[in-house]
């Protein structure tokens, strides 16, 4: 029996046993290994309807298998990386998250020798503020934030974020449900930088958002698609790339970038986490995604903009020349990119965001009073039951 138990534990140990990772630096990409890729949900061409199944194609060309999983926002990607326990080889953080991961040494430098297709990336998209020396990331997509509006109800020209504060549209306005994007809109109205380190500027932005709150129907992310197409909401800020289908399929819906104040230019990049087990194969994967035909297939499926002119040329005409996906130079010149905020500022932003959404940062005294009340009732019930039972026993 003891032997059997020992064998059982040995088997468990085997399951956990480390893969003997030969130092990947010099060795060529090995076929047969499996890399773990962690990307945004619905952010890669997955095949179907005659499109390219990018992961299957990669495996076919290189023999490297892909374990492809998805996340919903930068913060959950961060917590997975920082929490440990998951060994990813390729991840897709956005601009400010790239900066934060670099600062916290959670991603490693890329070996661009192994990513020859980096040459396809246009100069304009290299070395953004989040990765100024350009050693850690390869841009995958980019885009701008703009306002969707229902042409039936919104007749005026949409060229300023201030329209989201117009009481005429009370109850028909949607807002981002994440702090960076929501605060960003208020910051641009006030003429501040997205990456301001001054706490008074953030406070002023929060005040502006609080003023807007009574007009807002809901703070949402993906629900804007349904709410906009059904006419439940008339105005919503969102990412340009996601919206192309919305605008194309629904003639009533328009999209405009607020040119008066400027907007957010965002980049989702490809990085390799520190301590990745298959760095060489991960670089092969990044290289593969930079292949113009692959990049074009992805952009066609995803709807975002590619940083490669070679890939853009391969896109169908209506996508290649869509002013939503590829906005004019003037828009881009006025746009600003997020980068990492210092720790104390990002704490302040979280607190302010909670305050905006919940109206007051959950006063500790009330919380304690409520908890104490519950506890008192509970103890009261228990004591009452005990006394009752004792009386009955007598």
């Amino acid at each position, binding site marked *: 029996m003891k032997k059997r138990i020992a064998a059982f534990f040995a088997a468990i140990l085997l399951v956990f046993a*480390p893969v003997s990772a030969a130092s990947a630096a010099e060795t060529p990409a090995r076929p047969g290994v499996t890399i773990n890729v962690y990307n945004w949900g619905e952010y890669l061409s997955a095949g*179907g309807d005659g499109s390219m*199944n990018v992961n299957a194609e990669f495996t076919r060309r290189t023999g490297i298998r892909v*374990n492809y999983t998805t996340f*919903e926002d930068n913060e959950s990607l961060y917590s997975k990386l920082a929490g440990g326990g998951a060994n990813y080889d390729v991840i897709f953080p956005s601009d400010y998250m790239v900066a934060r991961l670099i600062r916290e040494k959670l991603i490693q430098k890329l070996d661009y020798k192994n990513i020859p297709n980096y040459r396809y990336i246009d100069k304009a998209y290299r070395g953004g503020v989040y990765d100024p020396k350009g050693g850690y990331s390869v841009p995958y997509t980019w885009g701008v934030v703009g306002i969707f509006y229902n042409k039936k109800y919104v007749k005026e020209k949409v060229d300023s974020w201030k329209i989201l504060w117009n009481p005429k549209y009370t109850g028909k306005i949607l807002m981002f449900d994440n702090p960076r994007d929501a605060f960003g809109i208020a910051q641009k109205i006030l003429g501040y930088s997205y990456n301001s380190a001054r706490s008074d500027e953030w406070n002023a932005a929060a005040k502006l958002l609080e003023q807007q709150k009574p007009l807002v129907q809901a703070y949402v992310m993906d629900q804007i*698609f349904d709410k906009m197409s059904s006419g439940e909401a008339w105005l919503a800020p969102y990412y340009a790339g996601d919206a192309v289908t919305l605008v194309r399929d629904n003639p009533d819906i328009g999209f405009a970038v607020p040119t008066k104040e400027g907007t957010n230019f965002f980049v989702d990049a490809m990085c390799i986490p520190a301590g990745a087990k298959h760095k060489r194969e991960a670089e092969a994967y990044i290289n593969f995604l930079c292949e113009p035909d692959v990049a074009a297939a992805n952009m066609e499926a995803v709807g975002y903009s590619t940083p490669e002119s070679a890939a853009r040329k391969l896109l169908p005409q209506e996508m290649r020349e869509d002013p939503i996906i590829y906005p004019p130079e003037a828009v881009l010149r006025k746009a600003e990119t997020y980068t990492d905020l210092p720790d104390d500022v990002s704490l302040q932003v979280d607190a302010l965001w909670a305050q905006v959404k919940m109206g007051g940062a959950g006063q500790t005294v009330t919380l304690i009073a409520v908890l104490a009340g519950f506890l008192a009732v509970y103890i009261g019930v228990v004591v009452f039951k005990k006394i009752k039972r004792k009386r009955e026993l007598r």
Partner: protein
Amino acid sequence: MKTVSKVYAFLVFLFLYAPIAVLIVFSFNGSATMSRSVWSGFSLQWYARLLQDRMLLEALRNTLVIAVIAAAVSTVLGTAAAVGINGMNRWARRAVMNVTNFPMVNPDIVTGVSLMLLFVAVSKAMGGRSLGMVSLVLAHITFCLPYVILSVMPKLRQMDPNLYEAAQDLGCPPAASFFRVVLPEILPGVVTGLIMAFTLSIDDFVVSYFTSGTTQTLPIFIYSMTRKRVSPEINALSTLLFAAIILLLIVINLRTAKDGQEKTAGKER
């Protein structure tokens, strides 16, 4: 009065089933815009897409594999534990039951985070293997176990404790008397526990979210679509799962009804 109660029952069922009805209706929506609120003709395109979506099918497979293993293992462990706990004296039994009940009232997020910390520490000690299928199965067994114990316990308490000894008096060896006498008596509780563990495991998001490592289950996969849009493929999949569960419930109910009839018939004879 009767009409009032009928209306009330109708409202309750409406409230319970309206979301599922909407979900099923929109799984047949023909729109290519993936709309979940504007109807544009009947089609089966989402079912066709569903069968081609390898990522979704893989997530579904992971979920089912985990649920089957977790339900089976936690049922075996839980039944054995319940038998052991039942044999204890009163104070020990109470103490142990409190300990086993605790994870049920513990919020999922606490269970999830603490399991993650444990798994990360263990995997680090074992050479930095990534969390994945193994840690997910272990986590699911952990939170299913108390439910199995809880559903088996009452059956054991109802059972005549002398049955087991009587079987041995008549010359049945201990193991055989457990399987041939005790197990049939508590079987309804065991089956309930098994089904409960299975559904809990399929359902679980929070604990899986923290312990999944590089493996993706269906709930996590669906949640990750929320920056873009949750595809109507999910409606189609949910419809299929719903149909499968309804079918299963009907079969189980028919069988128990038949059993009941046979039993009453047997008694009359």
